[in-house]
């Protein structure tokens, strides 16, 4: 399994942030973890880092239901931005939604590498990391 440089978590839920961060730290999955509670500041961060390949995330874990800017809007904006981003970043949706239409919707986005349903546990996180290209 690959150990990544930069893990990016976009989730307004502080407990989910905490859970992912704790597993990543305990299992030494990522060297750096960037946490964003709102999607628009994550977007700003990606814009500012677009040329800085080593600093760009190697993996984004994205929540769907967030205030102001939700995961879908983030994906829409990211799609516009991605030609200028100097890295192919796999995005994994992690949501509490069990609605089938959300899963279908996720398939329409090329950048989405996977769709996972909360609760977040060790198995879920390990699955995501096993899916990463070497």
């Amino acid at each position, binding site marked *: 399994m690959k150990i990544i440089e930069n893990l990016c978590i976009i989730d*307004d*839920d502080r407990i989910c942030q*905490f859970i992912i961060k*704790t597993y990543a730290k*305990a299992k030494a999955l990522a060297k750096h973890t960037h946490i964003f509670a709102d999607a628009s500041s994550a977007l700003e961060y990606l814009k500012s880092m677009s040329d800085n390949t080593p600093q760009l995330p190697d993996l984004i874990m994205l929540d769907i*239901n967030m205030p102001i800017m939700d995961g879908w809007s983030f994906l829409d904006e990211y799609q516009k931005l991605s030609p200028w981003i100097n890295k192919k970043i796999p995005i994994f949706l992690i949501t509490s*939604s069990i609605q089938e239409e959300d899963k279908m919707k996720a398939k329409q986005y090329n950048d989405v590498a996977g769709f996972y349903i*909360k*609760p977040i546990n*060790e198995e879920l996180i390990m699955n995501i990391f096993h899916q990463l290209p070497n």
Partner: protein
Amino acid sequence: MKDPKSIFINSVWKENKLEALYNTPLIGVAFSSKQGYVLELNQQYADMLGYTRRELVGTFWTDFSPPEYKELTLNLYHRLLKKEISCFTYEKEYIRKDKSRIWVEISVQSKKNEFDNIEYFIVLARDIDDRKKTLLKLDAEMKQNEALISKLKFQNEQLKEFANLISHNLRAPVGSMIGLLELYDSGIVDYKQSIGVFSEQYRNLTYSLLDTINTIGSALDIKDRSEVKKEKVSFKEILNTVIISLLGKAKDLDFDLITDFELEEITYSKSYLISIIQNLLSNSLKYRSTERKLRVEIKTYYTNEQEIMEFSDNGTGINLEQNSRNIFGLHKTFHTNKDSKGVGLFLTRKHVEAMGGKIFAESKQNYGIKFTLIFNYHENH
């Protein structure tokens, strides 16, 4: 001048060859003088009106034409007399001898002599009562069905929204609780170091879950407009009520309030309108800018059959460019602060929609926000 009756007798049969038509039971045929008196008519015409032929000859047209058709009828005959038209066809009702009404289709032509002078009118009438009444009934049923369909659509959307709420807003905190438990059970964190973090997070989750359940409960309590008590409510009075209720609650009530109630009152649920204005106003107070004195403007007016309220402030605003649908959604809030963003506007939207209205927002960060409410949106759509 010749007597109209004699002109009629001389010309009708010979010139118009109407005999076959006159004898058919399918259509009413009558002749009317230029002044509007019945000169002669066939059996079918008399039957439609429920009189005998003898009773009708010599009567004036207003004797069996309902008053509400007077203007229309006069107008059409005047145009015939002025020779603007040579015939016309229209649908109207007649009053029968027993005072009941019958729908008829009428076609009128003027009969002219060799000098192009109008001698009399030929009036053909067809009984369309069954057809017309069926159509009117269908029309009423259609309208009723449309109202029912729009109500069902609305309810279906409500259900979808609640499915969504359960999926996101209720599942999320439960998912987090399970996530925390599993993390705790995995043993990868040091028990002694983390117990404080765990218990605090558990406490927050539990309270937020209770908040969410309460909010959903309040939303479910909002009744549809057909079930809620409506009355004439004045914007000025409601605003006064709201301001009085905010005294003591809001920390800083020093702000400029500009009102322009061109539309002074609407028929609405009083408690819903109070709740709507209260939520909007307390949001303005809460999200005021630190750089300038808060200024709130409330405008009401009536345009294109729509009752509209514009509510705007010069507060911090919000960046709505990327996403405007979320502002009225219910958000998971992982702090116990009941004023947390989302709940107030969520309930405001619920109130507005339950009354058949629509609310939307325009905003620019650091410039303030403007809400537009169309109270009677669904009555017009």
